């Protein structure tokens, strides 16, 4: 019994220590070295100390859930709107990210009152210009990925991948679950191989001739072209071209890195300040140059590598609410699993 009360003492000491200082606790699933430099800038500007707790998104979410109401987390920053949405659905976020700065900076479909997009990316189609003609691609949509003409020519990641979950969730939001289920079956029938590897592996499969088209996020091609992944991948990236689907209707599927306000956040005001800071032109430039994402706000240009190789004048889907990615996530997994999407 004595032991337990000592534990209790120790715990309460830590809890109180957390609440007193002028600081903000970030549970961070984005592992970019560049991000931590940005947080140091915030501390220099405001005097608010940033405690960065890094981890994989699953583990961080687990800890927020475990700690429940007395969570030490203020902000949860992760790389998919589907993740923020799912945390919201489970009831672990709170409202309050509604300051004037945030509302003015971020378009409505890219935020809720509990989480806000801080940098954008699109999930698009990559193709081999040698084997795919302009006519074949003309008017291409996500829906068109299920067209039998792509039989044995398509590569895409596993169904457990969060980017795919969010893509399918957006298709459910736009076309309904039934249509999405039929679509998933068509996609599985078109696959050139059993899904494996990360987004870059899909792009490289097209470069290597294993497939003609691939689905992957925008920043991966820029990353490969930057040479950060070695000369071979740089060379491979030059063999594929990017294509933005659904340009004649709703636009390319957009996703975000998002910052979410955790329920019971001990430093709510500081958390809001930090989100506002991440939405300043200076921070946004930092994102675009280091992670090759698209800026969340107007007036900042993406990295030259992105602009030169992907183009800027594509239509983004501004209509589909990103909140639907979390809401439809369970249905998306169900649809993909039922279609035999590994």
């Amino acid at each position, binding site marked *: 019994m004595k032991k*337990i*009360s000592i*534990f*209790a003492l*120790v*715990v*309460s000491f*830590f809890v109180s220590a957390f609440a007193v200082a002028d600081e903000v606790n970030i549970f961070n699933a984005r*592992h970019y*070295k560049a991000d931590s430099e940005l947080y140091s800038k915030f501390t220099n500007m405001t005097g608010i100390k940033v405690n*960065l*707790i*890094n*981890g*994989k998104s*699953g*583990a961080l979410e*687990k*800890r927020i*859930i*475990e*700690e429940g109401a*007395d969570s030490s987390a203020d902000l949860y920053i992760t790389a998919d709107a589907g993740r923020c949405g799912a945390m919201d659905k*489970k009831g672990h976020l709170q409202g309050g990210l509604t300051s004037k700065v945030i509302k003015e900076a971020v378009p409505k479909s890219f935020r809720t009152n509990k989480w806000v997009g801080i940098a954008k990316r699109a999930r698009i189609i990559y193709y081999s210009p040698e084997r795919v003609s302009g006519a074949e691609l003309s008017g291409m949509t996500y829906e068109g990925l299920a067209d039998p003409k792509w039989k044995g020519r398509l590569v895409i990641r*596993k169904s*457990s991948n969060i980017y795919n979950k969010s893509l399918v969730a957006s298709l459910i939001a736009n076309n309904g679950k039934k249509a999405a289920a039929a679509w998933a079956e068509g996609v599985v029938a078109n696959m050139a191989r*059993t899904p*494996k*590897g*990360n*987004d*870059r*592996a899909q792009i*490289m*499969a097209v*470069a*290597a*001739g*294993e497939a003609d088209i691939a689905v992957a996020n925008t920043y991966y091609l820029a990353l490969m072209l930057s040479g950060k*992944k*070695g000369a*071979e*991948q740089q*060379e*491979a990236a030059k063999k594929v071209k990017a294509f933005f689907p659904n340009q004649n209707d709703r636009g390319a599927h957009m996703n975000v890195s998002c910052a979410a306000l955790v329920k019971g956040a001990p430093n709510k005001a500081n958390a809001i300040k930090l989100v506002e800071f991440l939405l300043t032109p200076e921070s946004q430039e930092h994102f675009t140059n280091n992670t090759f994402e698209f800026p969340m706000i107007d007036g900042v240009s993406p990295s030259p590598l992105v602009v030169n190789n992907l183009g800027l004048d594509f239509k983004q889907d501004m209509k589909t609410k990103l909140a639907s990615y979390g809401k439809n996530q*369970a249905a998306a*997994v*169900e649809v993909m*699993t039922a279609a035999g999407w590994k």
Partner: protein
Amino acid sequence: MKINIWHLSSLLISFLVLIPIITVFTSFFENTSNYYEVLKNTFLMEYIFNSIVLLISVLILTFLIGTGTAYLVSFYKFPGCNFFKWALILSFAVPPYIYAYSLTAFFENYGTAFTILKNLLGDANYNKNIPKFDGMIGAILSVSFSLYAYVYILARASFLYQSQNLIDLGKNLGFSKFSTFYKIILPAARPAIIAGLSLVAMETLAEFGAVDFFSINTLTTGIYNSWIHFDDLAFANRISFFLLLFIFSLFILENLSRRKAKYHLNSRGGFKNKVQNKLFGRKAFLASMFCFLIFFISFLFPLGQMLYWTIKFPQNLFDLKIIELMLNTSYLVILSSLILIIFSLISNYGNRVSRNKILNFLSTLSISGYAIPGVILAIAFITFIAWFDNNIIKFLEFNSIKKVFIGSILGLVIVYFVRFYSLAFNGIKSGYEKINISVDESAYLLGYSKRKTFMNIHVPFLRNSLVFIIILISLEILRELPITLILRPFNFETFATTAYISASEDLLEAAAVPSLFLILIASFLIIVTSKYILKESYE
């Protein structure tokens, strides 16, 4: 019966080991969430199927490689055989997950193999001609080349002590070399080989890192995924139940074969020394080549790939906090070793002075923790703490103890303790067996107290065993992945978790540096203890 400190500490340890087992069994009857209910049943069949395919393939491969190399180095002399004797155990320094990274790095599209071909033969698209070792095949290779040394070590030990008379007898009967091996040597070594294979089987079923990297759904990754992605502890525990059933049968099998092995080894005295036939010409070349090939594939290849990537992407070397990782690992090793050794000493000493049947039973129970996969231990531990916190601590109106045990060094060390207790216990036990009980009796006659006998006589005698145990624990903690991954405090990384996180976040080249350090440190520890490892196994 007098309750004393021996009983209390033995009871405490057995209780710790029993927690995960009881948690898993009681949770089996709990309702799992209805979320994905139908899907989960299809998943379960897939988990079981994949686990069986992986298990059987790895057993076949490790048997062939392990006994093949052991046979060559035990019965023949050929160029390099003395080197291969110990070099073949270096594969232990490469955990399956690092092997998996190396396979991918080398064989993937535009990987190292592509670079080599391009430099040799000029520009062309070689990707289509490069075999892809991923998915199930990749997992089988990674696990097999990392674990065959278990079979090698035990088979070799058994071969060394086989009766030369028996082998001569076979020769006199006109047996060919192959039928001597097949009809005499192999059956006589069977208990040792089965013991080695059982260890491989347990490690394979517990394997998390490599299998997760290749996204194969086995029972072990299934446990982790249903906990982390489905938020379903009950379902995780239900899968654990199936996995434990598997493992218990293996455990029984292993114990049975070990009993036989003892019987066999006892008969070693009084035989002629083993004759090692010298090989010449083509045969000598083939034997050397085979051993070198295994050594190359299992050790030099992953080491080379990780080294190449470290040099190719040097920025990662500067980004990695090597000293911090070293300190973290050392901290865990020192803390765990200390606790493990203290309790093992108490239990062993207790068994020695009291010779009590209950104590003996409790210690046997306590060492079974090594058979339980790390994933199960960690998740069952969390389940137990959450239950205890919700039902008992809350009832007593104390503050929650979750943070004290989950995501803390304390919790991590407790679960390490359960997992590695057998290592420390058996190590000290074998050390104690070398101190004749008459030494104790003489000490008592000379007026030594029990405490003085322990401190002044036992501990100095046991010093070598203690050093060996600490090195083995270091090796295990260095390579350990699932327990550390699930229970470590945030921002507290080891080489293993850094490599794992980089690899799973699409930064495979950043995984190379921590992997390289892990391999180098582990190799050093293995080389330091190689004589002991090779000797220990046949004593």
